[in-house]
């Protein structure tokens, strides 16, 4: 299979904070509703109205992969993701400690770590997020979208400047 190189692209400003992503994640992976089992979590600053979905970045140089003492974590280049092999994992939680995003969870019921596996290429959080706060796009498109957004701001500023100038004259 050709490497897809798709990533979860999160636009926090679009998030409505509804946490459907957490619900569908836990139902899809574990057959239960339990936000504590979700691979994605909406971190909130409620008194400011800020909602930030956080999930695994599937790092190229993944700290979890590097730190794992028994090499239970590997990269799956087909889906551009980092995977845990629970047959090898000893449950030491080094990966949980080292992840800079808090994306490696540890489930106290099953006593196992868990992380986003991109639902094998059809991320449910993306599928159910109507406002597209979570999207699944080719890695190179994330930067293009950001470029466009920034460019829009610049053109708006330019238009304002021109309008001011014509007012002055």
């Amino acid at each position, binding site marked *: 299979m050709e490497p897809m190189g798709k990533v979860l692209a999160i636009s926090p*400003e*679009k*998030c*409505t*904070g*509804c*946490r*459907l992503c957490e*619900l*569908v994640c836990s*139902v*899809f992976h*574990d*057959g*239960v*509703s*339990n*936000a*504590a*089992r979700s691979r994605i979590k909406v971190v*909130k600053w*409620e*008194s*400011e*109205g800020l*909602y930030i979905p956080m999930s695994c970045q599937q790092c190229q140089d993944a700290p979890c992969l590097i730190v794992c003492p028994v090499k239970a974590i590997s990269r799956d280049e087909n889906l551009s993701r980092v995977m845990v092999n629970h047959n090898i994992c000893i449950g030491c939680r080094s990966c949980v400690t080292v992840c800079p995003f808090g994306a490696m969870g540890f489930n*106290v*019921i099953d006593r196992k770590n868990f992380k986003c596996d991109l639902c094998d290429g059809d991320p*449910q959080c993306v*599928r*159910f997020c*109507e*406002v597209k706060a979570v999207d699944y796009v080719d890695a190179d498109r994330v930067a293009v979208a950001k470029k466009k957004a920034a460019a829009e701001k610049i053109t708006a500023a330019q238009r304002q400047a021109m309008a001011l100038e014509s007012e002055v004259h």
Partner: protein
Amino acid sequence: MALNRKIAYIDLTTGKIDIKPIPLDVRRKFLGGRGLDAYLLYNYAPKGCDPLGPENPLIVSGGILTATLASATARTHVMAKSPLGGMLGSANMGGFFAPELAWAGFHHLVIKGKAEKPVYLWIKNGKIEIRDAKHLWGKTTTEAQWAIREELGDDDIKSLVIGPAGENLVRFANVMTGIKNSGGRTGMGAVMGSKNLKAIAARGTMDIKIAYPKEALEFNKRFIEQITSAKVNQTQGTLGTPFIWGATNSWGGVRCRNFQYNQELYCDEIEPEAIDDACAETMGPYHMAGCFGCQVHCRAQYKIPTGPYAGVYDEGPEYTSQGAFCGEPDCRSLETLLVGNHLVDQFGMDNLETGSIISWAMELYELGILTNKETDGLDLRFGNDEALLEMVKRICFREGWLGNTLAEGGIIASEKIGKNSFDYLIQVKGVSNLHSDERATPALALNIATASRGSDHLRSRPAIDLYHLPVDVMRKIYSSPVPYDGPLSSEHTEYIGKPWQVFWHENCYMAVDCLGICKYHTTFLGATLPNFEDWPKVIHYNTGLELTPREIWDVAERCNMMERLFNLREGLQREDLKKGDMLNHRYFDEPTRRGAPDVVGRVIDREKFKKMVDELYEYKGLDKNGVPKPETLKRLGLEKEPSHLL
């Protein structure tokens, strides 16, 4: 699974806590949420109990589908005898509390007694603890919530709290969760305050097993498409409920100056688009938030743009705040709207009741029934923004003669004010009406007159009656799951066929409240949204429970009858102006002064109204006095109530 969530009985007087399972046969009879709450209230509230006394049980619940995949299962329900009108007290709110309660192992809490000192409940993973709340007493609704999180060291805790209004036993104090999700109606916050209960904090990480996960996911996807494809929900998702106030105002269906006008003129600043602009300017282009799992996201976010509260964050304002702080008191300033909304959120009082009661006082002031003596010098004329906001504070803290009097709610206040003040009070069963005017819409008038918790639009309002749907479309909706071949009319000013619509919606909304989902996800504002036919699958996939559309209808009818039985036990009499299924005389005697050509000059016809009530009673299986016939109780399996199954 959802069906193994438990019920907890908490006695605040003795500190005793009992946790029990909810038997399947009880589930099949009452499902959960509001329906099961109604059963519990009838069984646990002694007849004629003091609403603010220890014997009044406060019941808190999620629905049977709470936290499962049913498009949006956010709703929390609170029930008790109402301190406002002495009848059924019931409030329903969005947010994130009920799902957290379900993850903590519970669907229903029955809270009895009264704590000696301020306390709060801490519910985590199957365990319940009564904790000291001395440090929380006096705090606003958000201060209290954040303080609990800090104390217990967990930002994911969700709490149901009261603010100063609830502590001060303001009879229309609400219970709140989050920034603005309010269980607003019927004074449930005062009941909580009377028990010295400041908050219920929940945190859970217990699995709720989904019976058929794959099917539940796929069906949920389909459900969401059905719900978000409705134009009305798309507009809700951009403008929130202010869009409804704006639209209703355009044809003359809102209430202004207490009941003097049915349309607000020259109010550009508070039109939905203007509110939306203010939200966008202060919060950016994406300023809509959603309750748990909901893709409608109708809750706006804003910062107050101007004045002494500039920069303060809040959410909303909703239709009710527009009515409360604009239309009713005849104020037209965006700042007043946003500040008023913020004050009631922080104080924990019902915006609807607050705006209505102040506007009533304003009319009394202009009529000379209230004078500067009673208002302590406050110039309580319509259109006085400062007096309006000052009055909100005085009610919350019971300051001054009028503040303290209005805090008692309309019925008691009218007795204290005396003269003919009661004639001007727009209420049913002691509960103020939504800031809407139903004189041109008999179906809606019938709805508010007969609603179980008093004047209310969320119990049985056939809101789609305003859309002038073709009769064959209406027939399709209203002939299922129970056949109906009687008359139907597309005309909103008509009286025929309306009782059946009210009956149908009453059962539809009860079912929704038993499931724990939002009314924007059923046939409330959108004619194409899911109802009885769609629910069996979603119930089955999520809980494993098998029910037919007709069985769900029967549950709803049974639960509505439980509420009726409660109201009858508390003294409901058909034409009683304070406790009956009756409207204020102004609906019949004062024609509307403004609005579209088919709206202006209308009153409700007394005789036709009576006939509508007769007909509705017939559908409900009640006699002419509104009392259930023995065969009706038998049919619904309620002939032995109270039956103490739980």
